[in-house]
């Protein structure tokens, strides 16, 4: 078993990046995720593994540094929080278009605008439907614990390189700021330049004698060519939907009612499940871990067995659309949300279940 630590979620992201053999972090401070870069700077990852850490002049610069580095096959990561992630949307769209692998961490805070620094899940749409322009998808992971903050960084890199696509960790201020026990995976060695060149033949690493020069771009002025690019992307997304769905079911076997929630909300719903069951209400929890690909079939088959579904999110109702698109409108599906930085408490979630689903 790996090393055991008590860490903040943000710190776990940073430590996991080092251990995943990440080549570079580029970011800009913003609450509630500044600990990612602070931890890295304190850890001197350049001495530990050769990893480069640079504080950029803005989130726009950060994401374009990530774009540049990823285009050369390097394993790179950035993190920010909601307003900063909005500034990255052009760059993210470029990366999707140029098919570049990278991990982007959004430690979501309450919006819109400058909002508040408290936790929120209101960036679901932005992450899942594409906040940038054009038809693209990110793989979106929703860590619900410090352990997952760590593990999803590694998983994120694996998926990013497997599919040549940016991967987003959609976390929130609470998961970023809280400390939990985490079992760290062992250091994965950083690839040498030669390994990068060998493993990423698509990357712009300097022209090799035996191949054409490589061009990393998201431009194809010819619409027929651009349509081909898009068809290729769509085919890739289909493959991801077929292969990479992750979810968790808790107490679903005998459930008459169902919570659907991701990330921090799922943790709260888990407690609410306990509280409700203590009251005799048979409720289960379905937690999508991948938000894209969304567990469409899985959620549908579980929902088929229950009388009603409460989707709990720290937003005004976003993932609920994907739940409904999975199962149609003939099931009772309601939303319970708190927002703007407010975290719902387990007992109010139970109350909402009683009022909106069981009683309603």
């Amino acid at each position, binding site marked *: 078993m790996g090393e055991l630590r008590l860490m903040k979620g943000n710190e776990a992201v940073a430590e996991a990046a080092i251990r995943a053999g990440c080549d570079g972090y580029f970011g800009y401070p913003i609450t509630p995720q500044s600990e990612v870069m602070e931890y890295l700077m304190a850890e001197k990852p350049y001495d530990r593994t050769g990893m480069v850490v640079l504080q950029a002049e803005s989130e*726009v610069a950060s994401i374009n540094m990530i774009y540049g580095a990823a285009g050369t096959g390097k394993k790179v990561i950035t993190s920010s929080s909601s307003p900063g992630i909005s500034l990255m949307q052009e760059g993210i769209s470029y990366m999707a278009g140029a098919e570049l692998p990278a991990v982007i961490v959004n430690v979501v805070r309450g919006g819109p605008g400058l909002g508040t620094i408290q936790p929120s899940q209101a960036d679901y749409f932005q992450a899942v439907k594409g906040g940038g322009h054009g038809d693209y998808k990110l793989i979106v992971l929703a860590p619900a614990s410090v352990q997952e903050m760590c593990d999803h960084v590694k998983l994120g890199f694996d998926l990013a390189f497997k599919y040549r696509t940016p991967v987003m960790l959609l976390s929130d201020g609470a998961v970023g700021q809280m400390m939990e026990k985490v079992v760290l995976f062992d250091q994965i060695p950083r690839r040498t330049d030669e390994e990068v060149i060998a493993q990423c033949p698509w990357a*712009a690493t300097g022209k090799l004698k035996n191949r054409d*020069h490589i061009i990393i771009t998201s431009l194809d002025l010819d619409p027929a060519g651009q349509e081909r690019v898009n068809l290729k992307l769509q085919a890739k997304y289909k493959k991801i939907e077929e292969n990479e769905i992750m979810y968790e079911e808790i107490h679903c076997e005998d459930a008459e009612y169902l919570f659907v929630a991701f990330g921090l909300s799922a943790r709260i719903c888990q407690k609410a499940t306990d509280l409700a069951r203590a009251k005799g209400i048979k409720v289960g929890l379905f937690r999508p871990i991948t938000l894209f690909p969304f567990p469409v079939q899985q959620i549908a088959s579980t929902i088929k067995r229950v009388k009603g579904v409460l989707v709990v999110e720290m937003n005004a109702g976003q993932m609920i659309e994907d739940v409904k698109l999975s199962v149609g409108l003939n099931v009772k599906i309601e939303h319970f949300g708190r927002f703007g930085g407010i975290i719902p408490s387990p007992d109010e979630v139970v109350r909402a279940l009683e009022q909106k689903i069981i009683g309603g």
Partner: protein
Amino acid sequence: MEELFAKPEIRKPENIVYKKTDLMVDRPLSYCPGCGHGTVHRILMEVIEEMDIQGDTIGVSPVGCSVLAYDFLDIDMLGAAHGRAPALATAIKRLWPHRFVFTYQGDGDLAAIGTAETIHACNRGENITIIFINNGIYGMTGGQMAPTTLPGMRSSTSPYGRDVLTMGYPLKMTELVAQLPGTHYVTRQSVHTPGNARKTKKAIRKAFDIQKEKKGVGWIEVVSNCNSGWKMTPVQANKWMEDNMFPFYPLGDIKVDGKLIEVAK
């Protein structure tokens, strides 16, 4: 197309003294006739050929007319988002410190939307080369005003001439970045005459050479024409450039070996 003045006795492979470098991809350039972009491309590739660093160079092209530079330069390249080439180059150079990394950018790209990335890459003293094509206009999008457009100059968004009181002053990015400790070599050149083109080549060579010394940014501004945007023939445009651009953007070195050259203001 019979040739009247061919000299077969001279026209032999061993007598070739100038030939487009093989590092230019063999396809027609997408630029308008007479556009300086093509000349700079070729000169740049000559330097890379001379230094024998084709395999060690990673280039970053901008959004602008030279967005397709990567189609013409036979080296690995990345196309940046508009204005962000210095950010890409920063990350690439830091992760590949032994590669030669350059950006190739237009004036809209570098001096408008990319101002922050340009200033900060220069201020951090990234060990990269920045080639900055200043044609005083947005060529690609159809001739809009650029930050570098001269006072009174017409463009599609200053159809009655640039009015400095409402549209601002032409911005001398080169003089600005020369003020920063992170730039090591800063020069302004042109490629419209053989002499100038040769000087530009030396300047690019120098900027690449200092990448080896890790002393900071090497910066070459090339004042260039955009005959389409200026609505002139190429020859007229070069003349207009000499008469109007050069007085405002004087050619020559501005900073050498990290030291500002003393010139009259």
